[in-house]
């Protein structure tokens, strides 16, 4: 396939090559057509350079080797330039200028090759013709080059300006990230202060019911603070791994509710699920209610037991969060849709908010709470 690789040239480049080829053919045609001109060009009625060098081998070979090396190097340089223009013709401004340089360098190289030839074969007319062509190409390059200087300078300035814009963008990105971190930190700090307020208030009463209310409130606020803690340490500051968060939260609640007399152990089977903060907060609150409910009502006789937490995901972002205990189980007459308990009411409302479905099932022994919901994955 000729149309691939180096020969895969654009329409305009192909036209340029065609023009160069036509000009070369036109220039060469008189020599091929006219036998007299050909004879003139290839006339060898002169003395080869060999005699000028007095057949001194050192002198002859120094000239031959040096001229060959120069010629080959010029050829290599122009091949590289041609390849560069071919590969990056859309990104390099003035690629025609580079091509002209290539032609100029090839011409210079060919004069050196002629020097090598004329050591033995005195084709001085041809050598002169090659020199004329080189002179024309060199002169054109020399004349055209100064005109491009202002435009090249403009390009350099533009490149520098765009570099500055990139640096500014990066700096503003960093500032934004620092600001976001600061916001998460402050939100978390304020939530910590609210926890302190609940605690301080709870110490002012002897009423066990009231103390329990403050503790529940503290747990709820703490679950929200923990989301901001996770966001603060997360890489993108907007999403968290819910499985890690949920395990930290569950351990937290267990340590605040558990008493040494009631050893309740926690088992987690969690698949990693990345969540946005606005989903993680309600899910965290639901989890808080489910685990505290299991601890508060599941094991009334200080018997101890086990709480299992499971998080599974299926394709299309469907998730199931499940909290099970092997305690005494829910009362037979409990209706989750009409129960006056705030915990269940919160779970119901939050499940509705995240467009999820909540179910409470009786196990033997124990209770199983299921929450099914969908995680939207937008963006990277």
């Amino acid at each position: 396939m000729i149309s691939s690789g180096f020969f895969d040239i654009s329409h305009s480049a192909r036209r340029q090559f065609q023009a160069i080829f036509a000009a070369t053919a036109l220039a060469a045609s008189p020599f091929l057509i006219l036998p007299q001109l050909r004879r003139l060009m290839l006339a060898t009625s002169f003395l080869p350079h060999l005699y000028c060098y007095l057949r001194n081998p050192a002198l002859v070979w120094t000239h031959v080797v040096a001229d060959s090396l120069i010629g080959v190097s010029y050829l290599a340089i122009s091949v590289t330039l041609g390849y560069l223009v071919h590969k990056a013709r859309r990104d390099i401004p003035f690629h025609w200028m580079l091509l002209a340089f290539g032609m100029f360098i090839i011409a210079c190289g060919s004069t050196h090759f002629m020097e090598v030839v004329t050591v033995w074969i005195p084709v001085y007319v041809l050598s002169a013709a090659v020199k004329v062509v080189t002179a024309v190409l060199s002169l054109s390059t020399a004349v055209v080059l100064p005109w491009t200087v202002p435009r090249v300078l403009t390009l350099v300035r533009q490149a520098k300006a765009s570099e500055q814009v990139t640096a500014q963008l990066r700096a503003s990105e960093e500032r934004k990230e620092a600001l976001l971190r600061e916001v998460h930190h402050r939100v978390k700090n304020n939530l910590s202060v609210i926890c302190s307020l609940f605690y301080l208030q709870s110490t002012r009463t002897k009423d066990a019911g009231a103390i329990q209310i403050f503790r529940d409130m503290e747990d709820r606020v703490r679950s929200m603070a923990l989301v901001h803690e996770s966001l603060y340490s997360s890489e993108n500051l907007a999403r968290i791994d819910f499985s890690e968060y949920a395990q930290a939260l569950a351990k937290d609640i267990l340590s605040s509710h558990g008493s040494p007399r009631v050893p309740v152990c926690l088992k987690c089977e969690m698949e990693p699920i990345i969540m946005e903060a606005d989903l993680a907060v309600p899910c965290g609150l639901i989890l808080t209610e489910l685990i505290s409910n299991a601890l508060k009502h599941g094991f009334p006789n200080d018997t101890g037991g086990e709480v299992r937490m499971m998080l599974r995901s299926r394709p299309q972002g469907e998730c199931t969060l499940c909290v099970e205990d092997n305690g005494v189980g829910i009362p037979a007459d409990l209706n989750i849709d009409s129960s006056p308990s705030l915990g269940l009411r919160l779970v119901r409302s939050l499940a509705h908010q995240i467009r999820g479905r909540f179910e409470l099932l009786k196990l033997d022994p124990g209770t199983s709470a299921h929450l099914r919901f969908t995680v939207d994955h937008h963006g990277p």
Partner: protein
Amino acid sequence: MYPRVLIVEDEILIADELRERLARFGFSVIAAVDSAEEGIAIATRECPDLVLMDIRLTGEKDGVEAAKEIRQQLDVPIVYLTAYSDQLTMERVKGTEYDGFILKPFQRQELESTIEVAMQRHAIRAKQKTE
């Protein structure tokens, strides 16, 4: 005699909560201050048995620097108490000598157990030094 505690914490309500909780564990809080400079001054003057140190504080220096200075002058157990858990802060914390670390908002049992462990660790270290 009750162990004497110095609280360095810039959030006054959290300091109040700590004060009450510590009183329940049987500690006596000698002061709660909100800057590293005050913390260093009181610690070196009063020689407390424990310092609870927040990392973000009012004033020039932060808690990590304050802990470093206090430990240079005084052999006292230091427990960090902070809302920060990012890598940079943790790296800085690891570069100092301390006996405990609690993330805010803390748990009821967490505070008590961390302080207990810190005091014990310090006591064992002090014993090893005298031997």
